[in-house]
């Protein structure tokens, strides 16, 4: 999509910036920060998300804000984009103190945001999405919109069909539209919140090109991420948030002069403090993660076999087409792919939540194609869903009932259809202890637990009572680092010591490289390749994620 050499710099400068008199280029000399936050604090019930945060974001600079999940990055971004109001502190734009009390105000102040969750409306066309909120006059100015889109597409070197519905675009394209949307009203500051989370390695490269181009035009780019190597690759300035506070910030003078490993040591020290030593091999912290060698002792006998499994594509989905997979005892088979390429469909058809239109699924040699969810569950096939709030748990029921949610009516928790509370309570207490679920009690309503503890509830339920094969769908998505590590350890332990096979579906390539024995790649509902995990395999996996026909 990017045509490589940026040949439209002049056009771009004039289009995006000249009107505001901002001089382009990173070398344009010291001018005041584009945006600055001073002593900004924001608390939510029970958490202080931002604690006296002070940071300055300059024109012509990519400022990476790094921190793990829950460090307060998104809160800071939401304050700048007008979604949240800070409890105290000041926000300055071009040296003037401003109140950003709505997204509209942020846009007027020239702050454009690309949110982590897509904000494109699937049923709208590209142009409609871009023009949404423009709000000048009564009539939609379609001609003007088309002209503006044309200009943006040219400057950024993109090809866009303005009348295609957003849902038809690939995710990488959707994100490019999101960026155009953020720049649409002449923004001088661009905030990107975890923009790489749904991109392929190649998509990330293209994104990096666009970002450096925008930086060279003089925009202030705020790049929010939890991945250390992204900060090292892209940041002119790197700041670290931890527990809502700024625990480190290094400007271009430091970042440019220190070596990569020196910077890495600085950052890891700031991010994790004294515990840093033990955390250094965490994928998120390691620089340039790569695959690990396949374990020995495999292959064992196959426990789960998918033969030409197909699933009908529902609205807005890609479905699954003739997928063949074999999972052996004790093996971890990673399924890599960009989000929305059939991951959920695949997981659900294996779990029995979706009907197949063709093919067969065999568990330990026996076909389970006609077995329902409950039957598969009791045969030892388990599914850890990626949506722990939406479908994994019932918020209004107790933790205890959620732990036996898939055994309603079964002995020993029910007898003759009647509930046996002591039996449930007993089992629940054991699981709460065994899985380190932090809850006031088993009677507590599940909806009051934190995301990490909810995930533990789901894991406790799925991994207990004799599992044989577990399908994990994004098992660490949105968890803090400590819980992430605990979950990954559990997946690995269960596979290595108990021989429980795992189908690890994840959009986090690093997680897959870290845990898997083999890696299958899902693209538009098809498996485009299966490779053994090994150091250096990520490039190949990345190509497969784009469909496999895009070699170097």
């Amino acid at each position, binding site marked *: 999509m990017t045509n490589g050499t940026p040949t439209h710099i002049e056009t771009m400068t004039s289009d995006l910036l000249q009107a505001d008199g901002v001089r382009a280029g990173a070398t344009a000399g010291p001018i005041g920060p584009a945006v600055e936050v001073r002593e900004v604090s924001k608390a939510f019930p029970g958490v202080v998300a931002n604690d006296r945060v002070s940071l300055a974001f300059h024109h012509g600079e990519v400022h990476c804000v790094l921190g793990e999940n829950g460090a307060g990055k998104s809160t800071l971004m939401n304050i700048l984009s007008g979604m949240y109001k800070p409890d105290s502190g000041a926000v300055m734009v071009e040296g003037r103190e401003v109140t950003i009390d709505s997204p509209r105000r942020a846009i007027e102040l020239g702050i454009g945001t690309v949110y982590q969750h897509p904000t494109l409306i699937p049923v709208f066309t590209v142009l409609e999405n871009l023009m949404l909120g423009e709000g000048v006059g009564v009539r939609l100015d379609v001609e003007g919109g088309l002209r503006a889109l044309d200009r943006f597409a040219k400057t950024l070197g993109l090809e866009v069909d303005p009348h295609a519905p957003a849902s038809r675009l690939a995710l990488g394209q959707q994100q490019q539209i999101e960026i155009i949307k953020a720049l649409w009203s002449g923004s001088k500051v661009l905030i990107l919140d975890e923009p790489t989370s749904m991109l392929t390695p190649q998509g990330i490269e293209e994104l990096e090109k666009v970002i450096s181009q925008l930086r060279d035009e003089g925009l202030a780019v705020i790049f929010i991420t939890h991945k250390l190597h992204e900060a090292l690759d892209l940041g002119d300035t790197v700041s670290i948030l931890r527990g809502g506070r700024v625990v480190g910030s290094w400007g271009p003078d430091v970042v440019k002069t220190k070596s990569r490993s020196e910077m890495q040591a600085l950052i890891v020290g700031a991010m994790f403090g004294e515990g840093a030593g033990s955390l250094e091999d965490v994928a998120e912290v390691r620089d340039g993660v790569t695959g690990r060698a396949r374990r020995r002792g495999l292959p064992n006998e196959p426990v789960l076999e998918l033969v030409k499994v197909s699933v009908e594509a529902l609205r807005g989905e890609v479905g699954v087409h003739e997928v063949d997979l074999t999972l052996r005892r004790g093996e971890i088979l990673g399924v890599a792919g960009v989000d929305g390429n059939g991951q959920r469909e695949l997981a659900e058809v294996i779990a029995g939540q979706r009907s197949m239109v063709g093919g067969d699924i065999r568990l330990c040699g026996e076909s389970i194609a006609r077995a329902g969810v409950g039957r598969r569950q009791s045969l030892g096939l388990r599914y850890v869903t990626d949506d722990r709030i*939406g479908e994994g748990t019932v918020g209004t029921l107790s933790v205890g009932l959620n732990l036996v949610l898939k055994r*309603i009516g079964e002995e020993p928790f029910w007898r003759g259809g*009647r509930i046996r509370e002591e039996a449930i309570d007993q089992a629940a207490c054991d699981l709460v202890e065994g899985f380190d679920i932090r809850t006031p009690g088993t009677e507590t309503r599940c909806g009051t637990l934190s995301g990490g503890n909810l995930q533990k509830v789901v894991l406790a339920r799925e991994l207990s009572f004799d599992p044989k094969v577990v399908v994990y769908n994004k098992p660490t998505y949105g968890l803090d680092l400590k819980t992430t590590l605990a979950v990954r350890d559990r997946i690995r332990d269960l596979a290595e010591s108990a021989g429980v096979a795992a189908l690890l579906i994840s959009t986090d390539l690093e997680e897959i490289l870290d845990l898997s024995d083999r890696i299958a790649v899902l693209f538009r509902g098809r498996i485009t390749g299966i490779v053994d995990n090994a150091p250096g395999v990520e490039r190949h996996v990345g190509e497969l994620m784009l469909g496999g026909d895009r070699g170097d």
Partner: protein
Amino acid sequence: MVATVVTDVVSTSRAVVRGASAAKAGTSARWAWLWSLGQAIGPILLALLVSAALLLALGKNPLTFYRDIVSQGLFNKGGIQDTAIRMAPLLLMASGLIVAFRANIWNIGGDGQFLLAAALVAGAGPPLIGALPNALAFVILCVTAVVVGGGWTVVPAYLKARYGLNEIITSLMMTFVGVNFANLLIKGPFRSTTTQVPQTDVIPFKELLPRIPGTRIHVGLVLALIAVFAVHYVMTRTAFGLKLRVLGANPRAAAHAGLSIPRLTIVGFMLSGAFMGLAAAVEVLGVWGYVRADWNPNFGLPLFALVFLARLNALAVIPLVGFYAVISMGGHFAARQAALPDDFMLMIVGLILLFMTLTEYLAGRSERGGYLSAGLKKALGKGGGDE
């Protein structure tokens, strides 16, 4: 204006509740009990207040009006028995609503299920009671009513289960069809040859359901109370009840846990309709003995407010239904005195429902939990079926 006054009143009463509990520093159980009570009574008081204002505006004396309601519905010897008799069908219908709402099924068509069952019971009743021993006839008629009431939900239940079609609309359409169909039956095959007005034959008074000794209250009330307790037990203590609750609270979690959503939806819907049918049998066999064309007591809609106020708890429904029965029986008298239609009570119920949402808001959903299952909103947006 009104809204701010309301807010003030509510927040004051809330503060009072808080203060009381703080003063006692008692167990949280007592606290919660008081809280629920306050949340049930608050909207009722507010609705009565606003209705009083309307009465004043219409030049009626609200104190007289409310006094008439209470004295006729509660403190008059005949009146209180009428009130108890009225409770029987209301309790049965409320049970039906609780089963449905717990499972996130909006069975708004209760009146159609009720009336159609009533028409059949009234049509088949006289010949059957003449030909068979009474007890046997009653059982057959009740079963008929249950089947008719349940059967009338099949179309909306199937459309919801299969296509995710919004059952509010479909069950309401079925009600309009059912009401007219009942009329057709009464004017056609069931029409009595002995009367001018179109109606069914009359079951003689002494052949109606037996009375509780010493009263005019028929045993249908006992049946209704048993039904309420049974529903409470099933919903709280059994696997089937829990399955319905999981479906209601989070349909996607229900699918994830391997529950058959279509089957539960259809069973829950039909069960709900069955209670509506039973309510009709009890009312016809216990009170009227016949059904006139165009008769529609409209029991269904007002019950929504009561069932929500009871937070879908079957036991808590009993006092609330008692309250409504007083309003409805006493209100009939009071309205006639004031030359107003019975629909005045309908308005009160609507206002109760409206204020209930408001107190619910003020209480804060996250803190105390809502009256609605959490899954409802999702189910609404997506229609439930095509997720």
